[in-house]
């Protein structure tokens, strides 16, 4: 690795912007998505990072499991689904066992309760300094500002989260939270907030963070973590991390508070083995994370370090709503981020465009359920329904099916706007009878080709980007490779970001008829040519 040359002065500082997740509701995705698509640097970071992880995931599974990958996904999905189907039973069992291990357990219906419990633990123990490891659930509850408000200094210790905290920014990816930032942004934040000389060498920056945070671990009296898994059999909390900050946060301070959604449960340790084989490979293409930490209660009498108190806050916060039958599978999610990395939409619009803590396909599916469909009406549409997320998911959550269900709910609840309803009603009519279909496609063909004929709207695309255009460019709009660049009315939304191909001069039906296709059909469904008759 060659460190990039260090400039003498840092590049101009980006203005400290408003927190990206404080969004007005109902949330309008389009302005942010448009901004992200126009941001070439963001396109580069997010595009290359997600592609690398997506390929790494596929290679990792193929090399180790080969043809067994699909059965492995089925097994992992079945284990989670089984636990969810009997979640009350496993919760009872987990609570009993965690209590036997000495864990103090608390129950929070919503974010406010979770924060109130945490603050009360901090107050009773006169905590002053809190070190926190990465946890999406605490992002969900807004815990850090709540702790700071009562005077408990709270430091994010995951390197990415630490940098985001210095920059008053929010994570944009479940696993790699600062995927939207580059090294110069980190250098600037360190210079501004920590008073160190500017550098943008990642190794030096990490060393600065290491030294700074070790001082924090040394003096912290409260450690906060999330949980990757909760094991009903042993009452254990399992944390999967790479940097080691999670181990510090749960071991150095005298009090450890873990906050976990109820969907983290698995029945027994044997199931942990399956989940561990899935999680890191799906997430970062590692066989396993550097540290897989199983915590079972506070320090024992014969152990010479570890916290005196371990608290676990079990959080609902809308999860029992998702637990209903038709959406239950969404709670199988192990937050690996594979669907984000695989998603062609996430890759283009980035995490902040989703306007909520959970981004990407899984975020687009659960945010409307957690925070109200009427508040996030764009999210069920922030997908191409291509199914890449489903294919990448290690627990086989059928996300496309969930999106379609959410869209159906939007119609049922009257959230879908009038214009959209009118357009779909019209489309439905067009497809209803043969003659309406033929008539409407005749009109569409004529209108679109006429529009394409207007000088400013028409251009001819080279057949393959990057190659020289063919010698004879056919510029006649009545030939078959013209494109609409500026369509009128609602179609204009579509052509803002891409061109619309004009329909061909002749319809497929006409072409088929000319070939005698219909007669061939009448002859008894026999196919022409070398007859693949499966």
């Amino acid at each position, binding site marked *: 690795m060659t460190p990039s040359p260090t400039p003498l002065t840092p590049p101009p500082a980006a203005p400290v912007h408003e927190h990206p997740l404080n969004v007005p509701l109902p949330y309008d995705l389009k302005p942010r998505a448009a901004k992200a698509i126009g941001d070439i640097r963001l396109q580069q970071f997010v595009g290359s990072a997600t592609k690398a992880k997506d390929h790494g995931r596929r290679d990792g599974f193929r090399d180790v499991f080969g043809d067994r990958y699909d059965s492995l996904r089925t097994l992992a999905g079945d284990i989670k689904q089984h636990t969810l189907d009997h*979640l009350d039973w496993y919760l009872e069992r987990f609570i009993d066992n965690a209590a*036997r291990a000495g864990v103090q357990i*608390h*129950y929070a*219906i919503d974010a406010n309760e979770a924060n109130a419990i945490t603050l009360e633990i901090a107050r009773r123990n006169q905590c002053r300094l809190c070190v926190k490891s990465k946890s999406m659930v605490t992002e969900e509850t807004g815990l850090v500002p709540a702790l700071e408000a009562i005077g408990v200094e709270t430091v994010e210790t995951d390197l990415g989260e630490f940098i985001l905290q210095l920059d008053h920014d929010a994570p944009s990816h479940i696993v*790699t939270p600062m995927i939207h930032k580059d090294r110069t942004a980190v250098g600037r934040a360190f210079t501004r907030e920590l008073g160190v000389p500017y550098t943008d060498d990642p190794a030096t920056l990490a060393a600065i963070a*290491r030294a700074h945070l070790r001082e924090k671990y040394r003096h912290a009296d409260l450690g906060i973590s999330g949980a990757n898994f909760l094991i009903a059999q042993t009452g254990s909390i399992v944390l999967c991390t790479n940097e080691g900050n999670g181990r510090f946060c749960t071991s150095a301070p005298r009090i450890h508070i873990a906050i976990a959604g109820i969907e983290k449960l698995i029945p027994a340790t044997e199931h942990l*083995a399956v989940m561990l084989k899935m999680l890191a490979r799906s997430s970062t293409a590692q066989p396993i994370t550097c540290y897989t930490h199983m915590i079972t209660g506070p320090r024992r009498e014969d152990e010479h370090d570890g916290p005196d108190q371990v608290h676990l806050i079990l959080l609902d916060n809308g999860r*029992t709503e998702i637990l209903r039958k038709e959406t239950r599978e969404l709670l199988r999610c192990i937050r690996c981020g594979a669907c984000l990395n695989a998603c062609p939409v996430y890759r283009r619009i980035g995490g902040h465009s989703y306007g909520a803590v959970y981004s990407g396909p899984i975020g687009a599916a659960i945010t409307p359920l957690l925070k109200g469909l009427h508040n996030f009406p764009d999210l069920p549409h922030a997908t191409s329904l291509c199914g890449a997320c489903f294919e990448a998911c290690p627990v086989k959550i059928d996300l496309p099916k969930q999106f379609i269900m959410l869209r159906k709910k939007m119609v049922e609840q009257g959230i879908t706007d009038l214009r959209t309803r009118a357009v779909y009603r019209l489309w439905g009519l067009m497809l209803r009878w043969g003659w309406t279909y033929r008539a409407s496609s005749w009109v569409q063909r004529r209108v679109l080709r006429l529009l394409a004929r207007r000088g400013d709207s028409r251009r001819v695309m080279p057949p393959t980007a990057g190659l020289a255009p063919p010698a004879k460019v056919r510029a006649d709009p009545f030939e078959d490779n013209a494109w609409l660049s500026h369509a009128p009315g609602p179609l204009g939304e579509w052509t803002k970001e891409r061109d619309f191909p004009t329909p061909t001069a002749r319809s497929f039906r006409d072409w088929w008829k000319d070939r005698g296709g219909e007669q061939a059909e009448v002859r008894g469904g026999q196919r022409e040519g070398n007859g693949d008759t499966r």
Partner: protein
Amino acid sequence: MNVNAPFPGTSRGAFVARVSAALERKAPITPADAAPPPPATVNESVVRVVGAGEDLPDVFAKRAAAAGMMVHKTTGAALTDDLVALVDSLAAGRVAIQDRDSLAGVLSALRHRGRKADLGGTVDFAALYDVDAGITDVQAAIAETGSLVCSSGSGRGRGLSLVPPLHIAVVWCSQIVPDLVDYWASHAGSLPQTLPSSIVLITGPSKTADIEGVLITGVHGPREVHVMLVLDA
């Protein structure tokens, strides 16, 4: 402040009842309710990566090296000398050693050579920030992933394998299990009361790729992990 006052939040009963309701149970679950049918069987032919028949020390050494750990092979007889030589080569001034009979010789040998060496049990967590190397044993090692299993139980603790910038772990070949499945199956009978408070699978030095995906080792935990693999045990 009344420390006996209940914490804020919801009661256990009300909390679990909401879950039962979402599962469409007629009444909240009670201890009298029957256990659910068993979960899906963890099918060996689907999940197993490394079998018992393979050369486990060899697989373990390869996977551990792939994870970024430095593996040194030794024998029971040469262990103490090799550990001392390793500490010398790493120029670790201050060393803390886990209180195990098997490592007792190392403490005196290091002291004999003028190193500042202490037993882990005498160095508390806060003092570990000034220690250069921690030497530990392991509870098990996993060939599939090259992982070390470090337990806080039986007078050990959590800090030795975490706080010093160098972690040296001694693995006896007989401790290596083939697969993650084997290790976690060994906990099938584990009870909450008898488990140590901390079991950590360590697979490589501490690392991050948060800044532009550039891989950096030694971000919070140890910068280097050395494995002394005792082949004849």
